[in-house]
């Protein structure tokens, strides 16, 4: 390294030290501020935006849940209203039925009060929710003899105060039923429950009222005759307290209650304070209900949220009552908020965990890179410094920029060093120039020598080098002497070469002749080879043909064996067939005998039939004679004749029976024989089929034997032809081999002549080598010793050396 280079290097090192100190101080805070960290910003951005989104989603979810809860409250309320309707409608139907029955009785002219009383009782027995029912006449309408008459039946209620019992108890089994005439018991014409419906001319539900200790409501309906005259009213009573107990359950999530308010605002049911409902207090007695009452009157159904509660209301169509479902807001909102906030919190936590995991993973992967950047900044330094408020990306950017700056600085330094190197090279060139002039002269002399050498190289041995007193003159003199020696030797070599050329021509002619002979021999050999191949091919064909013939013969042999087996099978079958035929013949004979016996039997039976007929005719004749006989003695004779005829008939019948039994036996025997014959025939049929198959097989075997025989004959002919061809090829091969032998003799004589020529050339080459031994050659230029051939002249192995010294 040059001093200049060393100086530049030290200056650069000095410059880099301050920035190195700065970067070290900065890099000591490798634990960068978490506030500026990329991960922290990412966490804040992601979680913040997610929370916003979740908040919006949660709010939307909360609204939907709230809506659903309100809908559920309204549905519950609607079902309760329908329940009330379902309980009140039967009461109205009972009243309608009783009114129709009363109208009918009046139309029919029924005036007996007991009839109307019984009518009311019959309807009372069918009541369900209603506890009482009655029919009150208009003046003298139903029962003319009375102005007012109101038969009224009701069930005994536990709420009725004992000392205010109304009416008379019926006899068992209806001893829980009481009857009263409400004119005498209650003076009904002065009561609202008579006057109001009459005035309204339609059925209506009364406001709850007290009736002897019972909080009651009544459905009263006036009824008219065909002339549209008022006949009276029909009413049914319903215990409001009992009705209210039906709606004591909660509204939703075991919270809330149902309350029923009449059309005038009186409480019918109020589960939080049942006594108020029993006392039929107004809604105004309940402050929260009082405050919300105006809103409830705006429509027939709806839901209001106020006073910390949900107020769902709906009017009962038939009675005009209002049913209100009250549910605290906390019940619904708490549930909804719990679900919403819980879900949002869970999702936010999950998201935070995911982001934190990603950030830690990112920091873990960035840390090695940042450490390397710090190390690089420490080692090399830089103009830019790392600030505490910068994140990882910014730090990487700053480190990368410092690195680029360092690379630029290094490049400038390298350029300076290269300039210095060029100056040194120029000084060296000047010193070399002075040395060149001194060598120029030397070169001229050496150039002359080189010209002479080049001339020698080109083969011009007539040139001479200039001799002088210097070293180069000595070299020129030596070169001249070398040239003279070389010319002499070359002249000698030229003469020898001419002799060798002439000998070579002779050898060439001999070699040509030998080549021709060799070619002819090769052709003959090729022809002989071809013929031999042909013979081989023919022989192979013959072998293949013979093998085929063998295979065919083997096939024939197998076929003959199969045929033999089939024929043996046929012979066995024929034997069996003969036996079967003999059996069949025997059976047929037996059958013929049986048929003869049957024929004999038929003839016998025919005779018996004829005899029978004859006997019958004789009996007829005897009977005719007997009818004409008057004399008992003659009659006895006739009777004896008749007896004889009867005996003959009996004997004939006996013969017939015996003959029939014999026939039956004969028939059975015939049947068995026929079955046996049938079986034999079937067996024979199978045998015949087997014979057919055997015959087919034999036929096939003979056919295959014939075919194989034809093939064998054809193969024999082919083998014969192949043998003739082989013989011809062998003759040709012998002829060609004789030609080859004669050519080989000629080649041997020519080869001995060539050997003599080669010995002569060898002697000439020996003399030439002796002359050339004057020159000594370096060892690597000496020709390598060739392997000695048997029968050739042995070369001298002494190395030849040149007299002229030669620098290696």
């Amino acid at each position, binding site marked *: 390294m040059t001093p200049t280079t060393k100086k530049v290097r030290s200056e650069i090192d000095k410059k880099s030290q301050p920035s190195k100190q700065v970067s070290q101080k900065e890099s000591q805070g490798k634990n960068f501020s978490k506030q500026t960290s990329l991960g922290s910003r990412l966490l804040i951005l992601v979680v913040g935006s997610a929370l916003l989104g979740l908040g919006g989603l949660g709010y939307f979810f909360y609204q939907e849940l709230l809506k659903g809860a309100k809908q559920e409250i309204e549905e519950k309320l609607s079902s309760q209203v329908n329940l009330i309707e379902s309980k009140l409608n039967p009461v109205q139907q009972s009243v309608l039925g009783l009114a129709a029955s009363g109208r009918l009785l009046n139309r029919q002219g029924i005036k007996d009060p007991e009839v109307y009383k019984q009518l009311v009782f019959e309807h009372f027995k069918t009541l369900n929710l209603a506890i009482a029912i009655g029919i009150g006449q208009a003046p003298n309408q139903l029962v003319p003899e009375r102005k007012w008459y109101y038969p009224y039946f009701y069930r005994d209620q536990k709420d009725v105060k004992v000392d205010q019992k109304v009416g008379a108890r019926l006899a068992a089994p209806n001893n829980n039923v009481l009857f009263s005439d409400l004119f005498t018991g209650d003076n009904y014409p002065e009561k609202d429950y008579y006057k109001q419906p009459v005035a309204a001319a339609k059925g209506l539900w009364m406001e709850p009222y007290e009736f002897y200790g019972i909080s009651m409501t009544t459905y009263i309906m006036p009824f008219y005759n065909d002339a549209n005259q008022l006949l009276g009213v029909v009413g049914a009573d319903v215990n409001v307290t009992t009705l209210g107990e039906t709606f004591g359950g909660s509204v939703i999530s075991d919270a809330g209650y149902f309350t029923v308010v009449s059309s005038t605002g009186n409480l019918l049911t109020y589960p939080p304070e049942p006594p108020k409902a029993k006392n039929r207090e107004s809604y105004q007695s309940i402050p929260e209900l009082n405050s919300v009452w105006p809103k409830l009157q705006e429509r027939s159904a709806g839901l209001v949220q106020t006073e910390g509660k949900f107020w769902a209301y709906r009017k009962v169509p038939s009675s005009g009552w209002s049913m209100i479902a009250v549910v605290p807001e906390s019940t619904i909102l708490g549930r909804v908020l719990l679900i919403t906030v819980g879900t949002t919190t869970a999702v936010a936590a999950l998201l935070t965990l995911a982001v934190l995991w990603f950030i830690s993973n990112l920091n873990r992967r960035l840390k090695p890179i940042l450490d390397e950047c710090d190390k690089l900044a420490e080692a090399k330094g830089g103009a830019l410094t790392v600030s505490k408020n910068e994140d990882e990306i910014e730090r990487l950017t700053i480190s990368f920029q410092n690195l680029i700056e360092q690379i630029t600085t290094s490049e400038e330094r390298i350029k300076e060093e290269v300039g210095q190197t060029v100056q040194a090279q120029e000084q060296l060139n000047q010193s070399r120039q002075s040395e060149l002039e001194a060598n120029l002269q030397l070169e001229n002399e050496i150039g002359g020598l080189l010209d002479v050498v080049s001339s020698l190289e080109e083969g011009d041995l007539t040139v001479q080098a200039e001799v002088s007193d210097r070293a180069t003159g000595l070299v020129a003199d030596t070169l001249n002497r070398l040239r003279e020696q070389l010319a002499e030797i070359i002249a000698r070599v030229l003469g020898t070469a001419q002799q060798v050329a002439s000998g070579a021509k002779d050898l060439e002619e001999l070699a040509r002749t030998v080549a021709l002979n060799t070619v002819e021999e090769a052709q003959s050999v090729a022809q002989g080879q071809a013929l031999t191949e042909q013979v081989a091919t023919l022989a192979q064909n013959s072998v293949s043909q013979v093998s085929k013939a063998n295979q065919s013969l083997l096939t024939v042999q197998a076929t003959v064996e199969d045929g033999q087996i089939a024929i043996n099978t046929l012979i066995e079958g024929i034997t069996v067939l003969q036996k079967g035929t003999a059996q069949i013949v025997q059976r047929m004979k037996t059958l013929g005998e049986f048929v003869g016996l049957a024929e004999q039997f038929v003839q016998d039976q025919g*005779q018996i039939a*004829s*005899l029978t*007929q*004859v006997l*019958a*005719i*004789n009996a*007829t*004749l005897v009977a*005719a004679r007997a009818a004409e006989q008057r004399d008992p003695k003659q009659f006895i004779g006739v009777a004896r004749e008749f007896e004889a005829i009867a005996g003959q008939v009996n004997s004939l019948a006996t013969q017939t029976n015996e003959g029939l039994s014999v026939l039956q036996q004969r028939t059975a025997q015939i049947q068995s024989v026929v079955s046996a014959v049938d079986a034999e025939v079937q067996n024979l049929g199978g045998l015949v089929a087997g014979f057919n198959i055997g015959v087919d097989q034999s036929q096939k075997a003979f056919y295959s034997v014939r075919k194989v025989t034809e093939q064998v004959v054809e193969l024999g002919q082919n083998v014969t032809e192949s043998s003739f061809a082989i013989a011809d090829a062998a003759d040709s091969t012998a002829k060609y081999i004789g030609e080859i032998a004669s050519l080989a003799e000629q080649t041997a004589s020519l080869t001995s002549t060539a050997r003599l020529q080669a010995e002569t050339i060898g002697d000439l080459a020996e003399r030439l080598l002796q002359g050339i031994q004057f020159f000594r050659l370096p060892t690597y230029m000496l020709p390598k010793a060739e392997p000695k051939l048997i029968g050739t002249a042995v070369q001298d192995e002494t190395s030849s050396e040149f007299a002229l010294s030669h620098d290696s």
Partner: protein
Amino acid sequence: MNAPTLPSYSRYILTSLGEQTLVFGDVFVSEIILVERAYLLPLPFYTPALLGVIHRQGEIVSLTSLRRLLSDPNDLIPEKLTVVLLSKVAQDLAGVGLVVDKVQSSVSSEQYAKLRHQDLTTPYLQLEDLLPRIPAYIWQPQRWLL
């Protein structure tokens, strides 16, 4: 026997004689028997129509072949002969056995009249018409007829 109109009988015995139907009134028939040829005792020197005699119930009964008598004298004698024994009503021929081919049936007079009315192709021969046709020489040996 020859009467301008044949008398009617309560029953008739119908027998076959070649293609003819020979009709016997029941009063003419004593008995109908079946005789095997082995039991027949031929009488030489009598006409071929007189087949021979048999022994029946202690009496000798002669058998006359109506086929030989009316058509072919050389007609073969079957193995079993159907013989109608004539009753006393036949007077001269009482007890004689007439050999027929076979007995067809025994019918009432109404049935016989109906049969005659329906079947007009089959020739019916009454016994009364047949008896006169029986020559008297058959009852005598032929040597005395030379």
